[in-house]
């Protein structure tokens, strides 16, 4: 019988070790990323290589955290006021009122538990609110960016240098006010730096 128990214990220990190794392995695998290729949008937030959201975007985190702090402090202060009100006046505690004191303590302990639960719930709600707010904000930023690009390029389409080369038009060079334009199949282009890339922008 003892040997059976021993085997069970050994099995449990071995299985636990396997379990812990599995956890470590899962930890190690987390956070991997992949990329691939096909045709294509070429830009995006990851191309910026910045650790922070663009400075031009509205900063919401500070107001959010201050709201969060106010809420948390408010609940803590309310809790401490309640606690003070239930404490016996100094000098009134004696053997006669000990049962009441014990009851008070029990009540107080229950109050504290309730308050902690409320605070935890508050924190959970706040965290959830923050997550929702962050997701909304990310969505908003994404929409803003799409609108921005849409407005920016409406009526201002462009072609890359490689596409320009493959168009095969015998363009005509026109210099107006010191700026060189290229007329190709009745469309006027200007060669510009668009970000870090040279492109031909349609100007008419």
């Amino acid at each position: 019988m003892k040997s059976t128990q021993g085997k069970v214990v050994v099995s449990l220990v071995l299985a636990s070790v396997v379990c812990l190794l599995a956890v470590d392995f899962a930890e190690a695998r987390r956070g991997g990323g992949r990329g691939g290729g096909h045709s294509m949008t070429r830009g995006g937030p990851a191309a910026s290589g910045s650790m922070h959201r663009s400075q031009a975007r509205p900063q919401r985190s500070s107001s959010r955290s201050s709201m969060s702090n106010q809420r948390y402090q408010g609940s803590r202060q309310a809790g401490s006021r309640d606690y003070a009100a239930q404490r016996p006046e100094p000098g009134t505690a004696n053997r006669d009122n000990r049962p009441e004191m014990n009851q008070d303590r029990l009540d107080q302990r229950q109050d504290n538990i309730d308050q902690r639960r409320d605070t935890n719930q508050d924190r959970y709600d706040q965290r959830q609110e923050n997550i929702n707010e962050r997701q909304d904000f990310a969505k908003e930023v994404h929409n803003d960016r799409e609108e921005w690009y849409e407005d920016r390029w409406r009526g201002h389409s462009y072609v890359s240098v490689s596409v320009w080369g493959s168009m095969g038009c015998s363009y005509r060079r026109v210099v107006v006010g010191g700026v060189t334009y290229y007329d190709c199949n009745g469309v006027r282009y200007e060669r510009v730096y668009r970000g870090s890339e040279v492109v031909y922008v349609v100007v008419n």
Partner: protein
Amino acid sequence: MHYRIRILASLLTAAFCLSAHPQTAESPEAPEIEPEALSVLQAMSDFLAASDEFYYEIDTTYDVVQPSGVKYEFGVARKNLVARPDRLHTEAIRRNGVAGTMIFDGKHIWAYSKEANVYAQTEQVGDLVESIEFAVSELRIKAPLSEIASPDLFASITRDLETAYYLGENVVRGVTSDHLFLRNDYADVQLWVATGDEPLLQRIVIDYREERGQPQFRAQFSNWNMAPKNTREKFTFVPPKDAERIRFYVAAPPSDSNQEDAK
């Protein structure tokens, strides 16, 4: 009978493992900043701040999330020469072979394409940090990891920091490095900083967890030189005689798109 007991015990343990897994795999909830992680960042920042001129190369790759949701990887190799307070020379070569040079000479920002034989020029206002900010936000030029040029890299990296973990030592391309995990309100960042007397950045991975598709940016650093020589000529741009001057395409606000200034 003994056999059944063993099987039962194993099953119970396996069930325990499976129930424990999701909790272990969750990201940390409580904000936590480990002093050891901060001290590595501080040492790296101090070391870079001690040199006004330095050179490094980065091989960057990044995901671009397509409308369909799939991610494609692009890449650019860059050679950067930094001279504080206001000069920068950067050469970039994309994977498709397109190359470009960007120079901040303290008075002007120059962009030059040898392939297209064109250049653009605009006024440079402010120090390197301000100029890079201008180039990124107004000229829409990509300047990944430009925080490195900041004289206070520590402040720049730790802005809005929520989590900082020291994960241990790793060897990155033969360089023993401290591995850190940082989280701010926008991205998750992993850094590998060389241990020893020259705590220089070896690798960085940024996860844009708030962006659609959660794309990733990765950069591998190499050939750090904290005392580059004969740098003056690198910050002086003389356009080739036959090169054509073109304009930076700068968009006007959406409401005023007809008056776009391509200066």
